[in-house]
């Protein structure tokens, strides 16, 4: 099993699931790692399951602050990619993206870790703000699994699976 989630959704969102147990041995992570930050546990599960199907590890946080703390404390390693919801409790996705991109320790092979923003809105304003906050790309919710994989794979330096590259424009 190569994914887990470590913090509850914001109580302000009337959604306080207990912490999912961390049962994931970080020393055993092989291959690419994606950090998912979204206050919807359902979206976290969907992303985890979708990525896992293609052999990519995923770790989910329901709050950006918890994710920052976990990275800072070394609870989780620096990932290869971050999928970051814009509308988060306490600190917005834009704020979290800014903090991640400006943090010198948050580098992978000397390069900033790419960030892809997730949003329920698909307006030009959100896309522009995401770009300014340092995001590489933007995925509007609802998304389909193939669209997610098509965005994520190139940013992980992975070749698209045949069944998805065939229909790529």
């Amino acid at each position, binding site marked *: 099993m190569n994914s887990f989630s470590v913090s509850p959704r914001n109580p302000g969102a009337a959604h306080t699931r207990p912490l999912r147990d961390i049962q994931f041995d970080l020393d055993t992570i092989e291959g690419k790692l994606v950090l998912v930050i979204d206050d919807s546990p359902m979206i976290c599960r969907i992303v985890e399951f979708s990525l896992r199907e293609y052999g990519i590890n995923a770790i989910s946080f329901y709050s950006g602050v918890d994710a920052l703390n976990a990275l800072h404390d070394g609870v989780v390693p620096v990932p290869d990619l971050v999928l970051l919801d814009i509308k988060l409790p306490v600190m917005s996705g834009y704020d979290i993206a800014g903090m991640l991109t400006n943090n010198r320790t948050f580098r992978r092979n000397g390069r900033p870790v790419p960030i892809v923003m997730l949003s329920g809105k698909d307006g030009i304003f959100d896309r522009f703000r995401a770009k300014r906050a340092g995001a590489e790309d933007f995925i509007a919710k609802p998304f*389909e699994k193939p669209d997610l994989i098509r965005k994520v794979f190139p940013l992980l330096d992975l070749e698209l699976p045949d069944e998805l590259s065939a229909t790529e424009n």
Partner: protein
Amino acid sequence: MPQDSVLTGRLEGFRPAELLQVMGLNGSTGALHLRADGNRAGLIYVDSGAIVNCAEMDTGALTLGQVLQQLNLATEPQLDRVYLMQTQDPLGKRIGERLVDLNILSRDQLAMALKTQALWTLREMALWREGTYEFHPEERASGGSGDLRLSMTQAVMEMMRYESEWNDLAEQLPDRTRTHLALAPMPPARHPLRFPSSVWRIVAQVNTQQSVRRIATAVRQPEELVARQLATLVRDELLLPVGATNVPGLPNEAERLSMRNFDLFSLVQRMEQDWIKKKTPVDQLVALATFINMTMRALEDACRNQQLGLASDTLAILLNREQVAGIQGYDFRIDRNRIDADDIATYCKRTFDSAMRNHPQAALAFYRGSLEMLLRALGAAFEAINARIASPRVRSQNKEVWEELFATFRGQALAEE
């Protein structure tokens, strides 16, 4: 599911029958995932130490139709008729239920056939000596799995007996009941070629049906019995085993009815996005009714893509099966797989407003009760779709995802505190 308690290992260390024996003794509950080297996969659900469901996941798996024919309880034309009904209404009644409706089977015969199918599937898995196993505690079969309950002792004894039986037959039929056979091009000169009529009936099916299982189904005899006779014919060099492959997936008939391509993940995301915009209790209840309609619409599209029809009373049957007729004294108005959301809106607004004026606690109780009923209805639609997905992994992921969604709808947590 606590991931650290997943028990894994190789079948070379513990045979399936031994694993089940331990689970029976421990009174375990969960799912035993088996993967045999050579592309075969199986899943056995146990509940308090008894077997409640099991399945093999490939095109050669034993079907209920084959069992019914081998037990001489139904004929091929009768089953074809029922399969045709299924293609018109894939989420309606199950094949067994339809056979009972048509008076082809009694309820007792159906229960016996389902039990036989489970037992024969289990004993096939007993022969897997190489591969892996994973036991996932607390993983349960999705809804609609029926009320099968097999005693572990009975199952394990049958598995061990079958293992012993195949010790003698494996040389002639290396792929067991899936062994493909062909008539020898030249029968041995010393053979008198004199057989009883029952053997001739079997031989006559070899070139058309090929596999032991299909031959047994065609002659309407239990496959173990037919396997013994076929093994003798192979030993006498009258038949030859030939290569054949089974691919992962569903048996052919079931493949036509599968919802493999149903995109539940996109659907539930749309629901969550819609839900966020609903601010009042009445709007939320009406939204749930529209989510049921969205699911039915998506289902119609998925059926159309597979050239399947969806009966216009599918939703009514699903809700009836789930015993969800309405909410708190109000019966849903359902027409052609759609709930009348406007009618629900009117009813909910009237009831909720009236309760708020007099007893706010009653309004809250009305909201919670109605929410639960609508979630049961939506869950029934999801379960029906999920039951048509072959992969247990995908089924379990789908369920986990929609339970997260339902937790959001419930504003949840409250109960957990």
